[in-house]
């Protein structure tokens, strides 16, 4: 009887700590076309051998939340197991005519726009259900966009730890210093998910992020 009580106590106290550290739900958030799925693919390819989703130059390629369970990341003798949650890009406007500029016909564009609006709503709902968030921004774009601030503000309001990633540092216009200046309270890591540049520093920062949960 006493042994069972002690066992249950340890399970409750240490079991919770253990599970929260080893099976974290990490959400990838950001505006459309920042490279969230490219980063998710890079992480999944590095640690599971297979990619998570399709990427495209057309905005809103990811229109549904997609997951990869039990991604086991090993870094400097440490192991982090996480559920990777790749979310649709958050936008304040979606115009089907923008998709037609990429060669889609009117019907396809309207369908894509409709699905994209659902995707944004779904991504916002998922804010309630993640343990930590990696915000992926395009380092070649102006970081002061309201969508970025809204995402960060919502995470702060919910006490969800944040890591900022400036993607596409392979582009000439990329400016990580500008991003760091825009968000001085946060760690900013510059990467190129497409080319796999600086992923070591990213994984290091991911472990630090996991510690904050």
């Amino acid at each position, binding site marked *: 009887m006493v042994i069972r009580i002690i066992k249950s106590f340890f399970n409750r106290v240490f079991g919770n700590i253990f599970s929260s550290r080893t099976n974290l739900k990490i959400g990838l958030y950001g505006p459309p076309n920042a490279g969230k799925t490219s980063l998710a693919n890079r992480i999944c390819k590095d640690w599971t051998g297979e990619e998570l989703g399709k990427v495209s130059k057309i905005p809103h390629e990811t229109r549904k939340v997609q997951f990869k369970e039990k991604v086991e990341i090993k870094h400097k003798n440490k192991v982090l197991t996480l559920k990777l949650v790749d979310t649709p890009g958050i936008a*304040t406007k*979606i115009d089907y005519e923008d998709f037609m500029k990429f060669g889609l016909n009117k019907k396809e564009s309207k369908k894509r726009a409709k699905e994209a609006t659902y995707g944004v*709503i779904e991504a916002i709902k998922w804010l309630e259900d993640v343990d930590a968030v990696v915000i992926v921004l395009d380092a070649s774009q102006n970081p002061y966009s309201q969508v970025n601030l809204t995402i960060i503000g*919502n995470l702060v309001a919910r006490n969800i730890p944040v890591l900022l990633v400036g993607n596409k540092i392979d582009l000439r216009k990329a400016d990580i210093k500008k991003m760091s200046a825009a968000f001085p309270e946060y760690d900013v890591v510059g990467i190129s998910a497409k080319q796999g540049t600086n992923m070591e520093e990213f994984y290091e920062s991911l472990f630090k992020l996991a510690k904050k949960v």
Partner: protein
Amino acid sequence: MAKNKNLKNKLTLRFVSYSEMSKLESNERIKKLLDNIVENKIIVLQGKLEPVEEATLISSTMALIGRVKGFKGVELATIQPGKENGFFENIKVGLARALVGERDSLTVIGPAAIVRDIKKDPSKIDLMLVKSL
């Protein structure tokens, strides 16, 4: 009907005071803003929305796209003076905000069908309108 036709060619900027919005509940604030935006008005708001309200505004906006004819979403930006001040100035600003609310912020929200883009740096907002107004 003729009145609506005339309105189509007019650009309306509506200035909304902090006191006007602060007396409303959160969902009423969002509804009021969206009602104005759907009527193609650009809102200049004294103060700012809470982050959770901004997220709700975005979700509600998405739900309206495709349902309201010609509605493509919103453009919004907030500037909040005081961020780049020194330590003591920030304390002063923080105290003032605690007492009277965030009246020193300014938020611009407009329909994406009229506001093509909002360019923002920490201290100024540029509003780019569509050419064919």
